[in-house]
């Protein structure tokens, strides 16, 4: 059994990942920490609590974290996911309260008292993780691996010209994490958008028909589904965080991956927040290559959807 902490800016695709993790027999979620990103941190916390209720399994403690990126403003985040106020979607009031301890302190305490095998799964901006690394580097070095939903190739982003949302929202925090020295498995945005990983209208109908947690996984994404119907003329749903969780739990789902020195661009006018994948030392470069990450760009889409369905169906 793997012990994990999930750090999440719970919007709708985070909720799906949370439900999957809480119903995954091979994993024990020892804590959920929340952060600002898709929505403000209060909304993220409420959404996380709602997702936990709807997972219908056990209830890990939930710790509220940092309300804004390390350096910059939170920006237009909420506009992107648009709604994500799950309370308004009729899921009711969460049955559980948060624990009265800051997420960053909880992270440090749990890792410190752990056996060095607690892994992190991050679904949002890396603000909490970076803050914990800055505050207690020796403790955080005990983490064996971080699996992250974030990043993308610079040519493949819907939110900004070159940057993926989670990294773009807090580039300085991502920079801290990638320079920290813990190996990162980064599940990119394109991994959830290629090779059939997107839920089509049939998939959506199948999850709805199954009821319970499965239905919740698509119902909580209703705003995204509506947006896709409006923009593209048909229903579809990409679930970046669910793909990232699936990759963590079942690495056999990975179809395409490569190793790289991932650098986070902090200063560019157009490229701020871009994940730069350095694969070799260029002709005009002097810095040596320091591999720090495994980048996942494609998963076996149908197998992912089956894996997800098997976890969330009743």
């Amino acid at each position, binding site marked *: 059994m793997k012990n994990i902490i999930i750090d999440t800016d719970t919007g709708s695709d985070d909720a799906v990942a949370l439900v999957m993790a809480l119903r995954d027999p091979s994993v024990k979620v020892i804590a959920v920490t929340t952060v600002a990103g898709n929505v403000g941190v209060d909304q993220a916390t409420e959404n996380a609590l709602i997702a936990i209720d709807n997972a219908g399994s056990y209830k890990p403690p939930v710790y509220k974290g940092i309300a804004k990126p390390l350096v910059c403003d939170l*920006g*237009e985040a909420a*506009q*992107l996911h648009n709604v994500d106020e799950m309370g308004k979607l009729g899921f009711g009031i969460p049955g559980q309260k948060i624990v009265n301890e800051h997420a960053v302190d909880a992270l440090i305490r749990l890792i410190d008292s752990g056996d060095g095998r607690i892994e992190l799964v991050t679904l949002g901006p890396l603000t909490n993780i970076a803050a914990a690394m800055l505050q207690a580097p020796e403790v955080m070095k005990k983490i064996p691996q971080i699996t992250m939903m974030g990043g993308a*190739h*610079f*040519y493949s982003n*819907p*939110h*900004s*010209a*070159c940057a993926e949302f989670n990294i*773009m929202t807090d580039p300085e925090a991502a920079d801290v994490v990638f320079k920290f020295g813990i190996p990162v498995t980064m599940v990119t945005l394109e991994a959830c958008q290629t090779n059939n990983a997107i839920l089509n209208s049939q998939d959506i109908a199948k999850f709805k028909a199954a009821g319970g947690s499965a239905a919740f996984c698509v119902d909580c994404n209703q705003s995204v589904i509506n*947006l*896709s119907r*409006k*923009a*593209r003329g048909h229903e579809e749903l990409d679930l970046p965080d669910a793909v990232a969780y699936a990759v963590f739990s079942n690495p056999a789902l990975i179809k395409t991956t490569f190793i790289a020195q991932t*650098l986070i*661009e*902090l*200063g*560019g*006018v*157009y*490229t*701020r927040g*871009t994940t*730069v*994948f*350095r*694969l070799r030392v*260029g*002709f*005009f*470069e002097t810095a040596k290559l320091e591999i720090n990450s495994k980048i996942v760009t494609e998963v076996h889409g149908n197998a992912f959807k089956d894996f997800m369905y098997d976890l969330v169906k009743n």
Partner: protein
Amino acid sequence: MKKIIIDTDTASDDAVALVMALREPALKVVAITTVMGNVSVEKATRNALMCVEYAGSYHPPVYEGMAKPMFREHHDAAVIHGNDGMGDLGYLQEPTITKEKRHAVDAIIKLIDEGNGDIELVTLGPLTNIAMAIIKAPEVMKKVPCITIMGGAAFKGNTSPLSEFNIWQDAEAADIMFAFSVPVVMAAIEACRGECEVFADEMDRLINSGSRLAKFCMECNRTVYTLTEKDTGIRSFTLPDPTAIAVMIKPEMITGSFDSYTRVETKGSEYVYGTTVNDRRTLENNPFRASKDNAIGKFNCKVVYQLDSRAYKDYIFSLIVD
């Protein structure tokens, strides 16, 4: 007949593109302007003059231009193209014709001003001359109907992880061009890769064809294919600059392209300087965009990243055999 000015940092792949343009019946090269890039501007001028004579068709005037990028130091690519930019062969015939006195920037402005809005620009090197002409005479330069450039990357750079050499050499100049109102067709570095590479058997056939010009066009790439062979074990080389000629004259060869709003990163770390940021999103197909990106959908560039390789190479080979 299409009238063009070719701006070039003439080294080996520029040489092939120049020869093609000068022997393409559908083109009239009204001038060649040179710029630093692969080599110093003096070497680029010498190489351009040499190409004009080797091509054996007609002699457009050659004007020498900017010796340095606008705001940074010049970094040549001698390691790729040789110290002389032409494979360090030692037997190439030195040019007998000479460059014009006028500076390339002023020559571009004068020619465009005197034309009827029908002279297009083709650039094979850094955009320094073009940006200077735009800055000096924006009203004149608005008469240029289209700029076809070899430069930039659609997916992966060749100089830094994201940037291509011509743009990386002078990113500020490139961004001045993209921000200007003339539409750009960008033959990206990817377009010459894969099956578009010239392989050993094709090279040998041309070298042994009895054509002095074909031998020149292949062997001036000697340092490129020697380096490739050392790196990959396969004797082959890419021809980036000829893609600009092919894209302009034979657009039917294009098998992969997209429209974009392209700007160039000029700030930030050394790993992103010179990135061609190709924003393909439209307001219609991207409901998830950040609202600050209000320029999206106003396309200023067609990015070409793939060509029909057989047609591309046949086209090159048909023009360089004399």
